[in-house]
């Protein structure tokens, strides 16, 4: 957090240089926009001159000859202005949206390519804010700020030229306040932005506090914490109030100062210009134009100051977005592998060999980047069709074995062979295309039940989907819902019960008819009936497939061909259920404890 804040203080060239790489495709659009903004700046400076013309030619000469032509010219200028405004806003908007779309697309593709280890230490919210608000701010600032900058400068230059041409001396006197306005603007805009940022920060604290208010309400009641809670919350809202008022005060000081400086400009124009009028050195129209310009000058300066302040904030967003885009995946298929078998987004499946299902871990070691070693010299041979149950405490290394098998992680040393082929010689998705995977807490996507089952096999027909559901006994409950397979499951499957979600995730895994299967069994208890259905489903699904099961249910463990008791990254005991029970070792204890729990629950819920 602290580090990110430091970066706000300066505009860093390095960050933006990196960014220009990404701007290349929009070069032409930028050029057109810049031209438009210059035109707009010039048009804006023309209107006082038109009024000057009217004063000098109609009012002063006391005639209306030529007023028709004047009207037409004026109208033409107005139409030109309106057209430019229309074009520039729609073009800048187009650029903004195109850029946001492109960067998001790149970011999303990168996210798909990054291995699971990238996600291990990152909260979903952290990634979300990069993909949503950071990209929005970046593309918004780039497309609007840069064009506004062009407008601001071109208008200031055009106005300066007009003033100097009308009367150089008067121009110099009047413009003497401009540097002051600029200094004040830059100083205050930065302060204003900082203050606003402070307010936003507290605002997110308020949201978090309400979240705790609601979700922790039961705890609050049981501990009678209402008063302490409110006091703590009031500290936050008080600081929010004070910071907000402070932010308003800063901007409320800025505006009057700048308006006053502007009036000094007007005063200088009026007193000096007035004298010149009396001496007939300039016309009334010129005096009027000068007075108009003094009020026009302030807006572009303010804009430019705002843009510089915003660019500094956008810089932090830019850094975050680029760090995502420039991330190098830890697991990459070698070039010759990609050439032969395709990559993640363009697989050449026709070249892939079929998988029979024999697996071998050969001297596999794995340690995290932090140096923490999880597995050391792990060896294991599995026959096609064998079911391996992994048993052990949290942190024992069972999940790592599964993650290595799925190639979510790669071994630090040693190799993993599938049908005798080192899996690093094949593309990552080779194994995944042949894998059925059921997670401990099932994750579904928005969409219908059918969409979710078909996620396992995009070519599955309706019959395939129904058959898969029938196999895992999900068909009945699906048909009981009003819309059947067309029922929307809601965000994350929220409209279904946990048990129903589990059954659908089984159907999703089985519809792809995989050779390999990974099952991370759920620990949470569900109602007895669903529990039975799920146990049946597990047995059917694992039948004939090479599978790893991180097992919690006794029936699953018992039915496995081999049980591996894992402790501290090593195989402590191995064998089938009967063998291990006879040993009366770790497995025996684990099993009996579990047995009591399950049986007691069984009896209690009859």
């Amino acid at each position, binding site marked *: 957090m602290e580090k990110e804040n430091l970066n706000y203080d300066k505009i860093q060239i390095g960050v933006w240089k990196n960014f220009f790489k990404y701007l290349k495709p929009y070069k032409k659009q930028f050029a057109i926009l810049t031209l438009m903004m210059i035109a707009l700046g010039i048009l804006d400076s023309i*209107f006082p001159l038109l009024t000057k013309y*009217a004063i000098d030619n*109609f009012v002063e000469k006391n005639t209306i000859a030529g007023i028709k032509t004047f009207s037409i010219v004026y109208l033409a*200028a*107005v139409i030109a202005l309106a057209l430019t*405004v*229309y074009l520039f*806003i729609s073009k800048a*908007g187009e650029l*903004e949206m195109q850029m*946001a*779309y492109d960067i998001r697309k790149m970011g*999303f593709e990168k996210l798909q390519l990054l291995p*699971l280890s990238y996600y291990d230490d990152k909260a*979903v*919210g952290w990634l*979300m804010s990069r993909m949503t608000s950071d990209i929005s701010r970046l593309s918004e600032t780039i497309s609007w700020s840069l064009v506004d900058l062009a407008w601001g400068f071109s208008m200031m230059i055009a106005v300066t030229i007009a003033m100097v041409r009308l009367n150089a001396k008067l121009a110099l006197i009047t413009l003497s306040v401009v540097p002051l306005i600029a200094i004040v603007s830059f100083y205050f805009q930065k302060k204003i932005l900082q203050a606003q940022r402070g307010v936003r920060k507290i*605002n997110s604290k*308020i949201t*978090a506090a309400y979240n705790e208010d609601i979700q922790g*309400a*039961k*705890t*609050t*009641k*049981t*501990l*009678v914490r209402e008063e302490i*809670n409110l006091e703590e*919350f009031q500290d936050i*809202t*008080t600081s929010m*109030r004070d910071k907000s008022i402070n932010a308003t005060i800063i901007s*409320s000081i800025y505006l*009057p*100062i700048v*308006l006053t400086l*502007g*009036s*000094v400009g007007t*005063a200088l124009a009026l*007193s000096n210009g*007035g004298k010149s009028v009396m001496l007939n050195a300039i016309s*009334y129209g010129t005096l*009027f134009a000068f007075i108009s310009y003094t009020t026009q000058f302030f807006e572009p300066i303010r804009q430019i100051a705002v843009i510089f302040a915003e660019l500094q904030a956008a810089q932090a967003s830019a850094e975050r977005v680029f760090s995502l885009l420039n991330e190098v995946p830890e697991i990459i298929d070698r070039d010759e592998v990609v050439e032969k078998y395709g990559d*993640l987004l363009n697989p050449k499946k026709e070249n892939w060999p079929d998988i029979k299902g024999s697996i071998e871990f050969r001297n596999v070691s794995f340690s995290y980047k932090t140096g923490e070693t999880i597995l050391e010299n792990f060896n294991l041979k599995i026959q096609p069709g064998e079911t391996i149950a992994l048993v052990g405490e949290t942190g024992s290394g069972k999940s790592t074995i599964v993650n290595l098998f799925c190639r979510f992680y790669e071994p630090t040393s040693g190799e993993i062979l599938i049908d005798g082929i080192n899996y690093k010689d094949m593309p990552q*998705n080779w194994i995944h295309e042949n894998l059925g*995977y059921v997670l401990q807490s099932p*994750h579904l*996507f*928005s969409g219908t039940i059918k969409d979710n089952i078909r*996620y396992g096999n995009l070519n599955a027909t309706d019959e395939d989907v129904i058959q898969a559901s029938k196999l895992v006994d999900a068909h009945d409950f699906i048909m009981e819902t009003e819309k059947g397979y067309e029922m929307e499951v809601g965000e994350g499957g929220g409209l279904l019960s946990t048990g129903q979600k589990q059954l659908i995730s089984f159907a999703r895994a089985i519809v792809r008819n995989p050779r390999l299967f*990974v099952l991370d069994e759920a620990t949470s208890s569900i109602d007895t009936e669903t529990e039975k259905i799920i146990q049946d489903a597990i047995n059917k699904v694992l039948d004939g497939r090479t599978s790893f099961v991180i097992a919690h249910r006794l029936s699953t463990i018992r039915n496995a061909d081999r049980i591996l008791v894992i402790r501290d990254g090593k195989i402590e005991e191995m064998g089938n259920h009967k063998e291990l029970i006879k040993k009366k070792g770790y497995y025996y204890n684990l099993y009996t404890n579990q047995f*009591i*729990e399950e*049986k*007691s*629950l069984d009896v*209690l*819920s009859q």
Partner: protein
Amino acid sequence: MKNFKKLLEFMEGYKLIYLLGMISILISQMLTTVTPLILSTTVDSIIGEKSISSPIIQSIVNLLGGKELIKERLWIIGLILVFVAVLRGIFLYLKNTLASKAAENTTKKIRDRLYDHIQRLPYEFHVKSETGELIQKCTSDVDTIRRFLAIQLVEVAGSIFMLVFILYVMLTLNIKLTLVSILVLPITFFFSFIFFTKVKKNFEASDEAEARMTTTLQENLTGVRVVKAFSRQEFEVNKFDEKNLDYKNLTYKLIKNLSLYWALSDFLSMVQVGCVIIFGSYLTYKGEISLGILIAFTSYINMIIWPVRQMGRTLTDMGKAFVSLGRIDEILKEPIEVLEENHHEPKIDGNIEFKNVYFEYEKGKPVLKDITFNIKAGQTIAFIGPTGSGKSSLVHLLPRLYEYNQGSIKIDGIELNTIDKAWIRKNVGLVLQEPFLYAKTIKENIRLANPSMKDSRVFDAAKIASIHEDINSFELGYETLVGERGVSLSGGQKQRMAIARTIINNSPIVIFDDSLSAVDTETDISIRKALKERQNKATTFIISHRISTVSEADLILVIDKGKIIQRGTHNSLINEEGLYKRVYNIQNSLDDEVINL
């Protein structure tokens, strides 16, 4: 209008400040009309030769030393211009800060009220509530009201004041030119009003598309394992691309509409300015107005165009504030619990008597039926029974999270529902099944009920709850943050944290609502042992499905379908046919069954 009254109620105490803010706008807008008059007088009568028509201006000129003197020293007028600007600046400053003070204080009051109200809503409300919707009301609806007070209302009032003043001055200067000056204005106003009413649809469409895109992204990130395991990267990329493109197109459509709006309203505004210049020139030619007046009119028209244009938009936005007020009021209308009704705070030792207690959540569906039992201070009572049998509901009655419908519960001889809720809850420690931890440090989470407790007490409680060693294994120990920004604790660790934060209060009555379910058997035993060894023994309620956990209780109640079906001690219950014995037998017959598989 009912909502408007609500708003005034929230503003109580800050109405005067807000009113002063409004007066400041009034003055500052009055002052804006002065500058063009100074310009026009200077051009016509100081530089020019015309006589001054307004007696007020004439007397000001006389006060400053007369026309001739000023003509020699034009800087005097410059000074006046700057003086007016400074004066106006002061009132602008006052307007902003006063309005902000009133608005921010009002907002704070609403926020605090909502926060407090929510935490005091009955337990039942929180069992059913939807977090997302409530948070939405507390944050964005409150902000809508804040913006209404701090920005929109002030802005609209300012625009109206300005319009009125300028119209008045213009009318005194020249009626014909005034009429021409406001020819296009109504069109500009209605155009922007209608436009922003219509374009609402586009805004909504863009917001919805963004929400769809965000959902897709979120589901992809939370389901990253599924995506990778099923090798669906390509599919996901296409799915996201569709949403991304949709959002881009709909937002672009909105921007395109907006660009049309800005172009057209720029056109209308500039045409209005043009009308003033051209018709004004004509009037000067006719001799009906002077050059100074023409200059004044062009200044005025430039001043009022922007506010008129903006007003259409602001007015369409302002309606939202009242909708938000209504939505917030919905929360505040929910009746809350009164924690201290009769200030009845008797000393509590922990003797408890249930007599024919009935309880139902919904009318006609009793959850507890005819519950009767007695327990003395310091004793332990255990409940065992199927899920949904009413055990949890029973223990929730003690801290008065729910009120019993019939019968009587007496604590040390005093009827429970006459004792203040706050008082009884301080004396009944309830360890919830699914504990909630705050985004605070571990230490703060343990001494949640009393932040001033000594560290040594925190450590003791953690030791009893068998969590002390876990905590010390974290890098920052007791200062470790819990939650998203800190460590995530396992289910068992959370339960032990919840035990620690409950027993630290030394309440005479403690309830464990199946709160050892995620803790392994050995830890379970050591926690119960440590609890027994505590000096001040509390009356203890235990709900569990583990025979070993309940077996040592002084009284065991077997509950099924809201009724007590068996009661006794472990020894008496294992000699009696029934649920308890069946559960117990599983343990004894275990060896045979295991081997016979």
